[in-house]
């Protein structure tokens, strides 16, 4: 092998690297490497002049490979590989040495930081010496998309993708689409009715020729990669044919089973056969298998007997549907933090202590009380209502460390809705800070305080308990420095937003990461906020972080734009860094065939053969092969051994 002519470009990153790493010394040390023909340092390598100087240096010095020692490859690997290509050399002979995130930012001692930066840089220089030029593999793209989650985020993303002419499948695990937004009464800061905004969108998505709706369905398995995913979806049986169901409601009248209604947050009850809301889509009843007496005409069969449309079919079975798609949008939404974690606030055991979603249903015209604010225990109008903000949020010691972002606004909205329903009632709000950033938001809160006479008390509540038929609220008003006692008829807790139940499993199935709070992790907090770390999988709505409706809709649109851009390409390029067999060394033992998680290796006439379309380049095969006969291209065993040596050289 002829020796490479490598150029090493050391970035100062302003003072981000240069403050704790002696960049001049790193460049000098690299110049001493036998394969390095050129070194340069510059204050911002990724700036326009920086990039130009890299291109120029490659041309002027006839370099055939490049090492840029700078920030994480996640940020600028593509930038510099593109430059390498622009300068006329192969982009896979360009590698990044990460001396910022993995070095300068985490070590203050300049001597030690410099020594480590030199080791990292040297190891990458040695690796590049054996890098082979190669071309990306072109793969065809499946021009279809899938959106997981049928709330406002998923509906918006599906509509935007569908409107571009790309076929999209919208998967929702509940019996209706609509999600959390459909449960809301009015929305801030305009106080327009959530269902009035939502229903037309739900109808549009149902009727859209490019959108295929799959409700009461769950994603079970995702295989493949960007451009070509294969998704297994489980369609749970509803035991009612949505095409035949006339939503006449005769079945619920005869159904003898009564269970708590989860769509009304357990504020009322439903039958085993039910429709979540009057405006549910699909407009069809669902028979809850777990509540039904047995799906057996001998045991009950009353609903089937009264159904004139003949829509009920006890013989429906779960069905697994396989869909091929090129991109996926994850919009799995949020749940509220469990009240059980708050024993000092009743722990969910005091009847008239509600959470924010329950209060929405009390205010909603379609809700359990027909739009009258009545307390659940005795159905009387509450005259003193205490709203408590930041319940479970901003409490790193015991609960969630983060701010749930929307609670200040929806509490102000709740106070106003309450005053609208009960004009002579008194509303109290306990808060830590008011965070009302957003168009028209601060004005909304001010109006709540001034026009609606809501009493805002700056402080936390220490305890709630039943007292003489009321709920005694013990709190503090830190502005007057006094303890406050209120005997309330009803208490509403603005509980923290947490990732929806099942987010962890969904992340596992999709192989995308989650952040420290359990929300789906974005690829970059600032520059790639709607992409997951896995190519072709995008994020929308509260699955990624707490956010309000306008932000959710914006993010859904952004995710849809990413999907459309991806699927508009005829072919995608796939990383060529996949396994390669050295036939002369292969004994055909078959251990690599066993180790491969992708079934990409087979034995052919006694030698291992790699299926290039299936190989993902994980390297499990190379770590298993006893004779080093199989390697991942550009991450070969020889390269790793030389990197190890470079890391330990003094």
């Amino acid at each position: 092998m002829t020796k490479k002519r490598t150029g090493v470009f050391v970035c100062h990153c302003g003072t981000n690297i240069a403050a704790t790493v002696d960049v001049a010394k790193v460049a000098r040390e690299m110049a001493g490497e036998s394969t390095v023909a050129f070194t340069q340092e510059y204050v911002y390598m990724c700036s326009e002049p920086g990039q130009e100087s890299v291109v120029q240096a490659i041309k002027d010095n006839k370099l055939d490979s490049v090492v840029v020692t700078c920030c994480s490859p996640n940020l600028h690997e593509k930038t510099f590989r593109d430059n390498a290509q622009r300068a006329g050399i192969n982009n896979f002979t360009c590698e990044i040495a990460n001396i910022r995130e993995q070095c300068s930012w985490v070590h203050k001692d300049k001597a030690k930081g410099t020594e480590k930066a030199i080791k990292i840089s040297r190891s990458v220089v040695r690796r590049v010496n054996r890098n082979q030029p190669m071309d990306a593999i072109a793969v065809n793209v499946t021009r279809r998309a899938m959106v997981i989650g049928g709330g406002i985020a998923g509906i918006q993303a599906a509509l935007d993708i569908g409107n571009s002419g790309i076929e999209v499948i919208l998967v929702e695990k509940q019996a209706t689409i609509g999600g959390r937004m459909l449960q809301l009464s009015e929305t801030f800061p305009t106080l327009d009715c959530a269902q009035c905004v939502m229903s037309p969108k739900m109808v549009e998505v149902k009727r859209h020729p490019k959108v295929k709706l799959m409700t009461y369905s769950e994603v079970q398995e995702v295989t493949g990669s960007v451009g070509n995913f294969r998704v297994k979806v489980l369609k749970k049986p509803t035991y009612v044919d949505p095409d035949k169901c006339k939503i006449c409601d005769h079945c619920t009248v005869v159904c003898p089973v009564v269970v708590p209604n989860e769509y009304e947050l357990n504020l009322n009850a439903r039958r085993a056969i039910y429709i979540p809301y009057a405006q549910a889509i699909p407009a069809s009843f669902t028979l809850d298998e777990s509540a039904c007496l047995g799906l057996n005409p001998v045991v009950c069969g009353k609903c089937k007997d009264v159904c004139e449309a003949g829509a009920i079919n006890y013989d429906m079975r779960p069905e697994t549907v396989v869909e091929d798609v090129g991109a996926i949008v994850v919009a799995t939404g949020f749940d509220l933090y469990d009240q059980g974690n708050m024993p000092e606030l009743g722990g969910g055991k005091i009847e008239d202590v509600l959470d924010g979603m329950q209060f929405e249903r009390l205010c909603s015209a379609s809700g359990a009380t027909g739009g009258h604010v009545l307390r659940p225990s005795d159905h009387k109008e509450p005259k003193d209502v205490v709203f408590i903000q930041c319940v479970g949020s901003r409490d790193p010691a015991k609960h969630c460390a983060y701010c749930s972002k929307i609670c200040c606004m929806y509490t102000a909205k709740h106070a106003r809705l309450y005053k609208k329903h009960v004009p002579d009632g008194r509303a109290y709000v306990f808060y830590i800070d008011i965070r009302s950033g957003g168009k028209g938001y601060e004005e909304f809160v001010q109006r709540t305080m001034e026009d609606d006479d809501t009493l805002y008390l700056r402080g936390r509540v220490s305890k709630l308990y039943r007292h003489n038929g009321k709920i005694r609220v013990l709190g503090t008003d830190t502005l007057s420095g006094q303890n406050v006692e209120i005997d309330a008829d009803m208490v509403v807790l603005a509980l923290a937003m947490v990732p929806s139940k099942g987010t962890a499993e969904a992340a596992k199935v999709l192989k995308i990461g989650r952040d420290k709070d359990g929300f789906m992790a974005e690829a970059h907090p600032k520059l790639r906020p709607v992409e997951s770390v896995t190519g072709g999988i995008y994020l929308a709505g509260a699955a990624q972080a707490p956010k309000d409706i306008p932000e959710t809709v914006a993010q859904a649109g952004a995710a849809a734009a990413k999907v459309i851009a991806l699927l508009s390409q005829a072919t995608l390029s796939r990383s060529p860094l996949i396994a390669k067999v050295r036939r002369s060394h292969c004994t055909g033992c078959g251990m690599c065939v066993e180790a491969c998680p992708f079934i990409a290796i087979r034995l052919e006439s006694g030698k291992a053969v790699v299926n290039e379309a299936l190989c993902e380049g994980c390297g499990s095969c190379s770590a298993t092969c006893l004779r080093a006969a199989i390697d991942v291209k550009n991450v070969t065993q020889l390269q790793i051994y030389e990197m190890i040596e470079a890391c330990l050289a003094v």
Partner: protein
Amino acid sequence: MSEQQAYEPKIVAFLCKWCSSAGSDLAGVSRIQYPANATPITVPCTGAISPMYIMSAFNKGADGVLVSGCHIGDCHYIEGNYLARRKMHLIMELIEFIGVEPNRFRMSWVSAAEGGKFAKVITDFVNDLQPLGPQDKLKKAEHS
């Protein structure tokens, strides 16, 4: 080196690209400080780490070797970290059998969201290696 100064162990840290390398990037972005003793080598997956890499690192003078990857069940390549765990368990037994302190080899699971944990893993490893001093059981006498 003066008598009082603690020994500075040399560590090679094999990090998987998807979780632990991203986790160490997060430690950087969060500016969480930890000792500079460990030099990272990023590989596609812990499943790609041959036991020979670990022996090679000891052979070339490493005082400690770390393998860090995705949490079990979270592997980007489905099952690479299961394969790694099996192999690394054998490595642990092997080096103990040879007479090397088993504390010199460590495996950890650090996700892309665990910058703080990554810093702690390195800090703890350095603290545990310091009292052991230089590793010379497997080190080649005069390595060139």
